[in-house]
């Protein structure tokens, strides 16, 4: 976007860092916890400089003990701190799910509101880097299925900052899903942030509504560019809360809906959106709701094979065109 002369706009990764810095700045109770988030600056350099700036009492390096430090973050959130805990690859929830599933999501409810748990679980997701089957999963649907958790997926540079801040300020546990492949993406930081829980119409259009989030937003916008039909692209921003109003309003207008995500399509989050829209707009839809996600296979190491599994710009464009032709 930006020419050589002017200063480059910030990257998604810079916006995340700024969001964390602001959170640490504005609230003494905010702490950052995770493997190499301090001295190392983060395995992907997301937290670079925060230890130097805020000190070891605010930015805590941990051993490789996710069950321990994620659980400790939940316990700390119950007792006055507001931790941001990094789980690194989303796949690693395999070793530290209990504090999220059985503790953070349920303790407020089980204590009838006596316990408040303001904690942010940062994790990054996404295939397309030949990271292999154990470092590429998108499991946001899991967390959306667990009552008591908010699930946030920033897809833009400004949301990387704005949604992170909103998540830290939220009194509830938030699963904050970053997409690795967006880290180097550049973009502008907005003025007044859209609240957590509101979807955003990223591109207005008339023929087909495309609902997506995270990394796939770029592919959907690219598809909108090269597509013969007019796409309205909605960046969902969060699965919980789920802003169905924006989705329904758009799908009602276009009469056609395509849901696109990077996660495996079967039993993925797209199914919930498709099921709701197909029900609410039963008499108004011109065509069936369609979904585009990864097929039911683990992600292979080989880059070509891997990329064939992810919804491509072309696949999105042709799916949208097909819908438009269909009715």
């Amino acid at each position, binding site marked *: 976007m930006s020419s050589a002369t002017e200063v480059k706009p910030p990257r998604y990764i810079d916006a995340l860092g700024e969001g964390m810095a602001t959170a640490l700045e504005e609230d003494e109770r905010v702490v950052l916890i995770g493997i190499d988030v301090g001295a190392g600056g983060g395995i992907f350099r997301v937290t670079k400089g925060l230890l130097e700036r805020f000190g070891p*009492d605010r930015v805590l390096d*941990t051993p490789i*003990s*996710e069950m321990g430090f994620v659980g400790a973050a939940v316990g700390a959130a119950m*007792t006055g701190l507001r931790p941001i805990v990094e789980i690194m690859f989303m796949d690693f929830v395999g070793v530290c799910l209990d504090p999220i599933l059985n503790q953070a999501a349920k303790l407020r409810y*089980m*204590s009838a509101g006596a316990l408040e748990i303001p904690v942010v679980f940062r994790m990054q997701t996404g295939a397309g880097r030949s990271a292999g089957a154990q470092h590429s999963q998108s499991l946001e649907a899991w967390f959306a299925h667990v009552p008591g958790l908010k699930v946030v997926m920033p897809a833009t540079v400004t949301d990387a900052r704005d949604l992170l801040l909103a998540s830290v300020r939220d009194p509830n546990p938030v699963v904050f899903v970053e997409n690795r492949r967006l880290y180097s993406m550049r973009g502008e930081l907005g003025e007044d942030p859209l609240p957590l829980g509101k979807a955003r119409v990223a591109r207005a259009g008339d023929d087909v509504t495309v609902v997506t989030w995270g990394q796939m937003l770029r592919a959907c916008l690219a598809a909108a560019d090269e597509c013969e039909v007019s796409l309205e692209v909605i960046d969902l921003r969060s699965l919980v809360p789920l802003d169905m109003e924006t989705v329904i309003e758009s799908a009602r207008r276009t009469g056609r809906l395509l849901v696109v995500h990077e996660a495996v399509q079967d039993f993925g989050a797209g199914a919930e959106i498709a099921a709701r829209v197909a029900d609410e707009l039963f008499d108004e839809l011109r065509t069936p709701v369609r979904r585009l996600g990864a097929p039911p296979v683990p992600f292979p190491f080989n880059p070509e094979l891997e990329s064939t599994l992810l919804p491509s710009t072309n696949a999105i464009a042709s799916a949208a065109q097909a819908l438009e032709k269909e009715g």
Partner: protein
Amino acid sequence: MSTFPAAALFATMAVIRAFETRVAELYKAGEIPGFVHTSLGQEAVAAGVGAALAPGDYVATTHRGHGHCLARGVDLDAMTAELFAREGGVCHGKGGSMHIADPSKGVLGANAIVGASLPLGVGAGLSSKLLRQARVSAAFFGEGAVNQGAFHEAVNLAAIWDLPVLFVCENNVYAEFSDSRRMTRVPSVVERTAAYGIDAEEVDGNDAEAVYALARRAAALCREGRGPFLIEAATYRHHGHYEGDPQAYKPDDEAAAWRDRDPLSVTAQRLVERGEASQEELDAITAQAAERVDAAVERARTLPAPDRDEAFADVFGD
């Protein structure tokens, strides 16, 4: 040695004993729903540690946590109502026996996931340290939980962060139906704790005064920033894993032998021997405890079920 009046420890144990005994009956009678795990036989640990902690200190406990909650001052009526799943319950009837929580008393909750109390307790210790509160966080767990990865990770974290965490292992021999000594080559939890380089001591878990003395010393160290500390309290559960457990796995005379060392008798005897209390006084305390529990039960029975809206409240805060 303890400067804390032993009679007070006895009184606390008497309340726990009366409560658990009554709960076991009520559960059998079908008046209490869900699962119930009583701490009968382990009262001295709850009383001793409970007395050693200060106001503002934290407690994270387990599925067998009634005694810990009572010893930390959670309201008897509200707890009873909770077990009855009634409106006045400390968790509005939404938590139950395995999830009694009362942050106003520092009780962060009983927990139905074995091992979960340790990382949560470590988190409370982290808050105390970073917020400069000098609060001690006591994490209770059973010897069976020591085989959970959460134990290993949590103790190590507390150690490298020098947290004011008091790890309290109630070694009551069994985990469900299994003799825990068969589940490790190193049955001593204190020995296993050497792996983390923290102070750890074993204590007679049926001697409330001994537990109190050690816990007070350990808590003081934690407050001075010399924590964490692990206490292994050797004790025994008189009842089964859950109420209704036939306990076929317990050797014949084992239970009897432990009942001879019943924590209430141990302290009662000492009080009388030392002339600190007469048998009459102790009987009065015991009777009083039973009355309090009876009253709580009567009260709970009269309470309505929680309002239906409760089912949908408190999922999210705003």
